[in-house]
């Protein structure tokens, strides 16, 4: 059970980094950290003690595997996370070129 709580702590650190930091790159980093925590949580849910990776061996006896379904879904999630990060970094570069800073409190035009 301790593993789950440490995983939640990692998620909380990511959320705090998104909320409290003014720098856009720090916000992107916080997003990445919380995403790692979520991915890890699903893999932790599918783990079984004293088991093997879900790859069938030659004699075909499926003995004791970890759950392959969360692994397949998180494989999709990791690749989508790469796309999201690339898009956020592109927007950050664009904002830097327009305002000359990464600090979100100095971008006056964004305040409604």
């Amino acid at each position: 059970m301790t593993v789950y709580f440490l995983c939640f702590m990692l998620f909380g650190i990511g959320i705090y980094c998104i909320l409290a930091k003014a720098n856009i790159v720090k916000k992107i980093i916080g997003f990445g950290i919380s995403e790692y925590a979520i991915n890890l949580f699903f893999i932790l849910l599918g783990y079984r003690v004293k088991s093997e990776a879900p790859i069938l061996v030659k004699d075909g006896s499926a003995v004791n595997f970890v759950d392959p379904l969360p692994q397949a879904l998180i494989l999709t999630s990791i690749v989508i996370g790469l796309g999201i990060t690339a898009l956020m970094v592109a927007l950050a570069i664009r904002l830097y070129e327009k305002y000359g800073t990464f600090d979100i409190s100095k971008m006056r035009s964004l305040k409604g």
Partner: protein
Amino acid sequence: MLVFNIVLVLMIIGAIIAMEIKDLLSSVIALGAVGMGLSLQFLLLKAPDLAITQLVVEILVLVILIRATIGRNIEKEYPKNKFRYLISGLIFLILFLWFGIKALNDLPKFGSALMNMGSRYIAEAKDKTSAVNVVSAIILDFRGYDTLGEVTILFASVLGVLSVLRMTKVKKRIDK
């Protein structure tokens, strides 16, 4: 069981360093260290496909983030209203942990997965798809439409990056 906790504590330390360090480039590299720890964790949790993918994606994210931070003038963050954010963050964390404890009581204990769907996939993977790796059998065959959606999202994000970054070039050309 202990080794998962140790790697996770190291990842948490890396995340705190990435959050609190002033230099942006060092922060990005600390995020890379967290990603490598995650890859190691996947390997320990018997998920080798995920470990390889996480390694590749982590290197790509590192390259993209370094491209964003390098050469930009890095200014010091001056502390302002940190206390308010700390209080709200702590309240959020306590609430989240409380609901997490409530939810974890309904889940199976760590190390004993239920495998309602997973055992069926394992049993049918060899006969239906003739793929040895069950994970690739699921993503390419049983859940092929999920992978189609993934590729669509990836393509859309590449289109978004191109359209956002290309505007600056067009504008610079007009300025000249």
